[in-house]
């Protein structure tokens, strides 16, 4: 049984990684084909530095991901604190239901409805170009927010509110009480929310596709590339991203195990 379960896990992992392995192998192809292997070469990696379109897109992706993650974390944490303080069950329920819409809805519907909004308002105020950096950022913040709120909320509910009340009773200003008392106890929720927001934003294709205008992010550029003939350079870039994610995750894992061992001993 144990062996069988190991084999099963290995097979699923193989399934998950087969296309990634293909991508890594073909990124070293000497010809420009992603179908036929012809020889080993690192030319696609060397060429990456000159591909301004792709590097620009990478830059755009990172900027949008960082900004949208920060803004949605701040806005979302404040929202969670505020919603938590709302007493009326009914209004709370309505707000939480609206919050869940972008999370539950199909990306394509969220993307299209936002695009219609931006174009509608763009026309209203007479812009000759309504889509761009601002709109893609707004869109990303919008779909990040529910994830932040829903990861902060449970922490907040677990927090002992008496502590904060005691601080207020002793004359501590509310803002200070928040930073000194509440924030430390919900910080894991905030960090999880931030990481989720950042990841979602990095990876988003569908919503950006409808809202980004000229401000093309990496998934959009890759989408346009797969409409023509994908060249190994796209694979090379993806391989680099894969390796950096892999290294980061392993590092994180090792550090966590170490710190746990320390605690244990």
């Amino acid at each position, binding site marked *: 049984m144990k062996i069988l379960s190991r084999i099963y896990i290995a097979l699923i992992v193989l399934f998950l990684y087969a296309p990634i392995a293909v991508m890594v192998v073909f990124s070293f192809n*000497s*010809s420009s*084909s*992603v*179908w*036929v292997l*012809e*020889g080993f070469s690192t030319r696609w990696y060397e060429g990456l530095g000159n591909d301004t*379109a792709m590097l620009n897109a990478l830059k755009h992706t990172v900027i949008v991901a960082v900004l949208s993650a920060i803004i949605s974390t701040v806005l979302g944490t404040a929202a969670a604190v505020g919603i938590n303080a709302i007493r009326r069950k009914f209004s709370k329920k309505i707000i939480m239901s609206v919050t869940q819409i972008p999370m539950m809805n199909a990306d394509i519907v969220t993307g299209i409805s936002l*695009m219609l909004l*931006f*174009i509608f308002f*763009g*026309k209203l105020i007479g*812009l*000759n*170009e*309504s*889509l*761009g950096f601002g709109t893609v950022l707004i869109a990303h913040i919008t779909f990040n927010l529910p994830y932040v709120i829903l990861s902060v909320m449970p922490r907040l509910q677990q927090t002992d509110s008496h502590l904060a009340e005691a601080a207020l009773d002793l004359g501590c200003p509310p803002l200070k009480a928040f930073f000194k008392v509440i924030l430390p106890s919900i910080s894991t929720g905030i960090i999880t929310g931030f990481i989720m927001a950042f990841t979602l934003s990095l990876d988003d294709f569908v919503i950006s596709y409808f809202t980004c*205008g*000229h401000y*093309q992010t990496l998934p959009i550029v890759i989408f*346009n590339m797969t*409409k*023509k*003939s*994908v060249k190994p350079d796209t694979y090379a870039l993806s391989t680099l991203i894969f390796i950096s994610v892999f290294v980061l995750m392993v590092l994180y894992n090792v550090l966590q195990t170490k710190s746990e061992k320390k605690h244990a001993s």
Partner: protein
Amino acid sequence: MKKIHALLLTLIISLSVLLTGCGYQYKELNLRANYDKSLQGTTLTVYNWGEYISDGADGTIDVNKEFEKLTGIKVKYLTFESNETMYSQIKSGGISYDIIIPSDYMIERLRNENMLSKIDTSKLSNYDLIEDKYKNLFFDPNNEYSVPYNVGLVGIIYNEKLTGKDIKHSWDVLWDEKYKDMALNFSNPRDAFMTAQMLLGQDLNTLNKADWDAAAELLKQGKSNLQSYVMDEIFGKMETGEASVAPYYAGDYLTMLDTNPDLRFFYPQEGTNIFVDSVCIPKNAKNYDAAIKYINFLLEPDISTANAECLGYASPNTAVINNKDYCYYQNEILYPDESTLPKVQYYHDIDNEIRTYYETLWTKVKAY
């Protein structure tokens, strides 16, 4: 031992492909017009078809980079894959472009909907290079809105090794069971309908709904024979032998031939579509003056030749056509003798109702 031989052979072949590939080699650009840096620091947004400009790969001219160097204008270059996608982007008002390169019928439509800026050809010192037969065409009778970029015909590309030499020179090959699962067709409705309309002997711009219905029926019948509907994905599929028969633009055939020497091409006997892709400036362009400079630059003999050689499309520019060093000089596929050619038809901008009719009909073909 044999294996090593085979390996060496493929290596040599792949190397020689690299070397013989068509590409305009140059040291220094010879320019007819003068370019100054008066618009330095501004940005020009160009919206062109995919794979439709010489981009500097393999030692060719990088047209946009040269323009940037010369004028200090930053070129933002974006691509589309069909006239309709381009149209929808501009019409929505979501995005603005300074230069677009639509085809004839789309220019007619954009002009009818008042979406183009006039181009003052007297400001284009290289405009005289355009061959006369590409001036005053139906979509721009007074040459006010467009400057021809490329011209071309649609034909059928096939892989001789996979299909055999004996192939009927007809659109019917896409419906022929001999090529089941190996045939491709266009994924944009207008071109896909054209393949059926030609077989049915229709006028491509028919206003009769029954004609479109008949063409849709034919497309539905042929669907199970097809491997897939494609646009530029055709390059990979034909170059590797994944597919064996496909309709596409003649110029792209020559590009594919560089990679796969087994490919052949014909113009079907029933006739085909002819098109002119021209440079236009949309009404909501932000940098009109830079756009004019860019158009003039595209007309430069060196630039036009670089583009013509890199893309493989026929050029409307006399400086290219008459250049004996041009690698497709008097090429019979690009510049066929008109007397040997089957009947050709342009697309026109069709009445709104009919257009909506066939564009919706296409979803039924796809869902069939």
